[in-house]
């Protein structure tokens, strides 16, 4: 009997043991979870403290360059051996997702602008540009330009929302921009939009005159712009596909004003071969319908090709374009054109440059007869010199000779102080 009791007791204990063991495991897991949570809180607090510290030191640094994140060296004050550092191995800069703000402005002195016999100082555009990283894959980009010159009242100063984009950064092969973008027509329009300080010359190539200043190319659209790399080894191929609508802004009555938001499509392909750093060659095809007057539209197609080299002191920009305007039965107009700009940096600060612009018009009917209003210039020779006073300030002198279709030829001169902040 006693043996039977002992056997039963042993069996009960044996049956209970796994339950106890399981309870112990659960307890240990709960403790571990609590410990992990506590450690996570500590890490978060340390990261916050580290971020604040980095911001403080960055503010204290005197370097004004806005594009760079500047941090005073913590090791300079308290040398510490690197291998013992406990920062996470996959850490990024603490302020990688901060708000970036940049501005461009210029002051000019112009003589005989566009053939007028003017002689005056002029305030250029104030261009404000900002990017914000919303998340690792989302970026917000906004750019607004204020053109204060020639405005009589403060209320009439146009605030031009130049770009407003939500940028989805997928990977090297696919990125998407949603909003108001600059059309990837040719090279110059995507490389230099606003911000006179960025470009070498005072004036833009005549082909890429802004719409509100009488330019006939659709340099801005609203819609979707996809871009990315094409796996092609050392050829460095990239594509851009854009679907959008023409942007209507500027002063009513100007030439080139598109009265209807017709759908536009653009495709661009360019190569930056790795074997020749600084070289870019490419082409683009654009198609939409242009409505210069109410309830009327004509087909518009624009082909461009470019070959650009910017390296080793040289800047050699070459772009050709053919624009077709077809409005049967009202005729057609074909506008071929090109420009070529050569610049070379002498020493550390001087960059003389020369540019030649050319356009021609072939057409028939009403469309052909009206084309010179859109492309009033025939060719232009422009020469000048840029002097970089500091990293952020440039002084430029320029002289140009324009041959026009609708008015006598003229010579114009300009001096510009352009800067970024």
């Amino acid at each position, binding site marked *: 009997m006693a043996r039977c009791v002992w056997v039963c007791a042993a069996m009960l204990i044996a049956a209970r043991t796994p339950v106890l063991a399981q309870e112990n495991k659960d307890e240990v897991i709960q403790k571990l979870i609590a410990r992990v949570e506590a450690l996570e809180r500590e890490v978060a607090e340390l990261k916050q403290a580290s971020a604040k510290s980095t911001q403080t030191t960055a503010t204290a640094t005197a370097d004004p360059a806005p*594009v760079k994140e*500047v941090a005073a060296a913590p090791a300079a004050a308290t040398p510490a051996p690197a291998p013992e550092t406990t920062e996470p191995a996959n850490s990024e800069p603490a302020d990688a997702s901060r708000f970036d703000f940049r501005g461009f402005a210029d002051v000019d002195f112009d003589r005989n602008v566009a053939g007028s016999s003017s002689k005056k100082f002029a305030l250029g555009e104030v261009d404000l*540009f900002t990017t914000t990283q919303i998340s690792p894959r989302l970026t917000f980009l906004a750019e607004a330009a204020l053109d204060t010159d020639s405005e009589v009242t403060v209320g009439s100063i146009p605030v031009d929302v130049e770009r407003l984009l939500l940028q989805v950064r997928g990977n090297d092969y696919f990125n998407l921009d949603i909003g108001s973008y600059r059309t990837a027509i040719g090279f110059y329009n995507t490389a230099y939009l606003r911000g006179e300080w960025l470009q070498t010359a005072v004036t833009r190539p005549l082909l890429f005159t802004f719409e509100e200043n009488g330019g006939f190319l659709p340099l801005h659209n609203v819609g979707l712009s996809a871009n990315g790399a094409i796996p092609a080894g050392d050829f460095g191929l990239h594509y851009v596909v854009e679907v959008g609508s023409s942007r209507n802004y500027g002063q009513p009555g100007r030439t080139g004003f598109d009265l209807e938001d017709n759908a536009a499509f653009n495709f661009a392909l360019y190569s930056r071969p790795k074997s020749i750093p600084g070289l870019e060659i490419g082409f683009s095809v654009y198609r939409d319908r242009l409505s210069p007057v109410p309830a009327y539209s004509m087909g518009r197609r624009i082909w461009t090709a470019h070959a650009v080299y910017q390296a080793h002191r040289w800047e050699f920009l070459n772009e050709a374009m053919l624009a077709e305007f077809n409005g049967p039965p009202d005729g057609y107009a074909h506008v071929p054109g090109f420009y070529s700009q050569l610049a070379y940096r002498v020493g550390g600060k001087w960059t003389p440059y020369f540019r030649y612009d050319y356009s021609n018009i072939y057409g028939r009917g009403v469309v052909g007869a009206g084309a010179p209003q859109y492309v009033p210039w025939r060719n232009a020779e422009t020469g000048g010199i840029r002097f970089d006073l500091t990293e952020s300030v440039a002084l430029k002198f320029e002289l140009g000779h324009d041959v026009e279709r609708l008015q006598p030829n003229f010579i114009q001169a300009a001096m510009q102080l352009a800067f970024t902040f």
Partner: protein
Amino acid sequence: MRSAILATMLLIGLARAAGPPSFAVVVHQSNPRVDLRLAEVRAYFGGSTTRWPNGSNVVAVERSSGSPAFRCLLERVLNMTASEYKRNLTRIEYSGGGRVNVKTLNTEGAACKFVFNVPGAIALIETASLSLAECNGVQIVRVNGKLPGEEGYPLR
């Protein structure tokens, strides 16, 4: 490990014996790109290449303006003036290509320490600074197949 230390010491010795300063390109220990062409180094520092082949973002570490390493970066790697360098970075960002990650640090030790901590970082430092404790944990990159101190090394 010992051979690596000896090699580093040899490089430093050669650099010092050579007279004019030599500069080394260093990356994080986990970075597999330890043999780069000078054009690739230029692309990483100039902002035209913003990602490593493994997809991580490139963080270019530059030394403060006026330092020998910064001058080497401008004159021998980028062939630009400081103004052109700034214009180039600004233009990339301005054209919608995203912000180029550039970190400016005031000392060689801080640059090494930053590279040690950030896997996507790349820095140009004086070869003599490789003896610093902060530089123990970084990888020296071959440029055009050469290490600092070797005949034909381009950054000296």
